[in-house]
């Protein structure tokens, strides 16, 4: 038995009878903690419909449902959440790439209808839409990495006196790290002009299955080496990863695959055409990305394809426009070798119009495809632009590639702010370094740095290499020697400060601050303000017969010109860009092939 104290002590509890009860007066609807994980909210403007929330949901509680039409970088889908499944673990919020999906701290939802517990946050109006409290992913906690592994690059001192490739490519470890950041949403696929299966080949990297990766690459693009290096990577601009860090380095990952597959293995994987020859013949003018892609596709279908190239080597602008330090020639050759292996015959050094006429091609073939590119530089047409010492960038680049001797003065001025301007500036800088041990290149661009046309890394690297880049400067005159032995030759470039480039209607009409004038001393002025196609090969008669659209050959959606036997595509039709040219090539091939099939049907 216990003591009397044990018997009496319980009675002290009676003191509570006069105290205020601890009961909550009105518990219904009581506000939850500030960071309570309650019902979902979604900022549908911010949401890109990448579906990461759906993928990560362990309870299969999320469906992606269409609420809008897809746009670039937005699938138009939005998550619909089934509260008959959700367990409020907030993994979806933690993984949300844009941070649009959050949770309010509201938690009371009672309904007699079990089907009512399914809703699209942000679209179906709910009482908690405007609640600011609740769970948001803490900023510093990300489920995926934020930054790309740093690409190993040559230091400026090491790279400036040669044309060796600057970028080393990812190592296996780096590539896996980067591939792991991909959420496989596939938004990039639509944006890529050729719709490469980007998430799939990134997954192949993760698995270490480079053969599969190569196979996926070749399904949509025969220029993996090229695109792995110099693609304009539109895909990276819509990448879901960019909303929380850097976009996935899709281009480098593509290159990583192709770096890990030997040329022989690549030929084995891609193989040769698995169909009987159709007996149809197609001539393609220009061995650039558009022409070669067309050739690759048509050859795979069993057609006999001949490519005519005016230069000594195939590759077009990829070889003659892009400097070697960005795209080594042997890499390009490896891509072309695969295309050749499909039975494509490439006749180099054959100029249409002089060596063989288009009429001849038309007569010998079932179809003719023009992929002639933009090989003529535009001129600024300012005073003195026809003086000796004024060069077209595209022409200079071609001559450097072809191994011709080009003049290398100590001081060079470049007009233009695009990638071609950077290419020629950096190429000239290298030649100067080799010759004089010092760089003396000035780039004057019409645009200011905020609106620069060239890629950021191009600009950064140029500056690293000692190139002077001046933004918002409009060329006014090529200053020439007025007298002396070098009379008429260029001695400088006079530019004015640009106030605005476009007028109110958006037309090109630059305004200058004439007081801010600089004369850039230079013995060579390079114009890099754009290119045009050399359409002289068409001949007068055909030029007359074809329809034109602002100086370019008019084509329909499939690349078919107004002449039934003639197709055209690539840079000359759609402007300069490798990946667009490849896309065009596929389109042309499909169109030509459809026509050939129709012909075969008729022949039967």
């Amino acid at each position, binding site marked *: 038995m216990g003591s009397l104290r044990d018997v009496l002590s319980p009675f002290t509890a009676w003191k509570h009878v006069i105290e205020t009860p601890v009961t909550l007066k009105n518990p219904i609807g009581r506000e939850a903690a500030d960071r309570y994980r309650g019902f979902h909210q979604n900022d549908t403007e911010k949401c890109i419909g990448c579906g990461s929330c759906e993928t990560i949901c362990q309870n299969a509680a999320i469906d992606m449902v269409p609420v809008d039409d897809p746009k670039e970088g937005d699938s138009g889908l939005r998550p619909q959440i089934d509260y008959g499944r*959700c367990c409020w673990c907030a993994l979806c919020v933690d993984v949300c790439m844009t941070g649009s999906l959050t949770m309010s701290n509201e938690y009371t939802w009672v309904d007699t209808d079990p089907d009512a517990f399914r809703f699209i946050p942000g679209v179906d109006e709910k009482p908690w839409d405007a609640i600011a409290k609740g769970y948001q992913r803490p900023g510093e906690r990300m489920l995926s990495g934020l930054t790309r592994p740093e690409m190993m690059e040559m230091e400026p001192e090491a790279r400036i006196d040669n044309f060796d490739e600057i970028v080393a490519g990812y190592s296996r470890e780096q590539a896996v790290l980067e591939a792991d950041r991909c959420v496989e949403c596939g938004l990039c696929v639509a944006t890529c002009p050729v719709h490469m299966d980007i998430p799939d080949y990134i997954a192949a990297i993760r698995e270490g299955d480079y053969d599969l990766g190569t196979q996926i690459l070749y399904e949509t693009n025969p220029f993996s080496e090229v695109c792995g290096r110099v693609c304009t990577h539109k895909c990276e601009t819509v990448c879901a990863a960019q909303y929380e860090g850097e976009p996935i380095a899709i281009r480098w990952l593509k290159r990583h695959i192709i770096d890990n597959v030997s040329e022989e293995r690549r030929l084995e994987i891609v193989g040769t055409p698995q169909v009987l020859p159709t007996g149809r013949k197609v001539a393609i003018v220009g061995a650039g990305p558009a022409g070669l892609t067309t050739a690759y596709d048509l050859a795979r279908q069993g057609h006999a394809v001949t490519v005519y190239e005016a230069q000594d080597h195939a590759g077009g602008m990829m070889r003659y426009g892009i400097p070697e330090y960005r795209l080594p020639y042997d890499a390009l050759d490896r891509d072309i070798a695969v295309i050749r292996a499909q039975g494509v015959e490439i006749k180099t050094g054959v100029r249409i119009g002089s060596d063989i006429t288009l009429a001849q091609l038309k007569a010998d073939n079932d179809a003719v495809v023009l992929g002639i590119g933009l090989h003529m530089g535009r001129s600024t047409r300012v005073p003195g632009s026809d003086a000796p010492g004024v060069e077209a960038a595209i022409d200079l680049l071609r001559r450097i590639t072809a191994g011709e001797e080009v003049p290398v003065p100590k001081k060079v001025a470049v007009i233009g702010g695009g990638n071609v301007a950077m290419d020629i500036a950096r190429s000239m800088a290298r030649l100067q370094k080799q010759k004089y041990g010092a760089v003396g290149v000035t780039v004057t661009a019409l645009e200011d740095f905020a609106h620069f046309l060239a890629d950021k890394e191009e600009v950064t690297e140029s500056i690293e290499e000692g190139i002077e880049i001046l933004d918002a400067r409009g060329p006014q005159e090529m200053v020439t020697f007025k007298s002396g032995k070098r009379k008429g030759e260029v001695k400088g470039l006079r530019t004015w400060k640009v106030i605005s480039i476009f007028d109110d209607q958006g037309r090109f009409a630059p305004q200058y601050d004439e007081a801010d004038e600089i004369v850039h001393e230079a013995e060579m002025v390079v114009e890099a303000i754009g290119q045009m196609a050399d359409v002289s090969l068409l001949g007068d008669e055909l030029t007359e017969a074809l329809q034109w659209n602002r100086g370019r050959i008019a084509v329909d959606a499939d690349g078919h010109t107004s002449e039934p036997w003639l197709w055209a595509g690539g840079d000359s039709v759609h402007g300069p860009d490798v990946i667009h040219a490849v896309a065009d090539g596929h389109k042309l091939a499909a169109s030509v092939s459809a026509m050939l099939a129709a012909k075969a049907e008729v022949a039967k």
Partner: protein
Amino acid sequence: MKDIDKSFKKDTETDFPLREEMRPRKVTTPDGQVIDIDPLQDYFCQEPPKVHRKSYSAIVEGFYNWARANSLWILGFGTGCGAIEMRPLMTPRFDAYRYGIQWRPTPRQSNLLVISGYLSVKTLKRAIRAYEQMPQPKYVVGLGSCTINGGMYWDSYNTIKKLDEYLPVDLYIAGCMPRPEALLAGLMDLKKLIRKGEAEGANRYAENFDWYKANQKSVIKDWDMPDYSW
């Protein structure tokens, strides 16, 4: 979504044998008499549930509904993790008793069956029997995701996904688990339903008895009880 093995087929051939103690047999009584025993027939009532009409007078029915609403007796039967959220309501902090809500230990004295979260097949069997033993009118509240569409046990081999296939549910409360406050809000909503005379789940159960039984039997393989028990 999880990957699924398309070639997987569940075993639909094998019948589960009736348990030994449920089989009909002969028993010798202490005084030497030999009697036949069929537990399924002898121990249980075989009468199906009836549809009970409302009171003839609307005023009386209204008063009754008011009384029913303000005297909710919950069967203290926690089927899943949600039972843990039901307990705070009994504590001084929430004090559900002030709303006329209390917990009863026996289905006979309860009007409300709260299916508190996931319901495994094994528990479903008990829940059905408990529900059927409750006097009419009776109510069922589904607590949490699991009762709505399986919740986090959506791919489990032994929990049911849709509670309304097996019992007539009056009300669902979303959450995993719902907080006690949400549960209390749900009970207040149920009170409104009862007062409006819309909580007639027991009659729905009686009207669609065959459908409910078929659904119940489709998942409970060892059905060794009568179709209706009270």
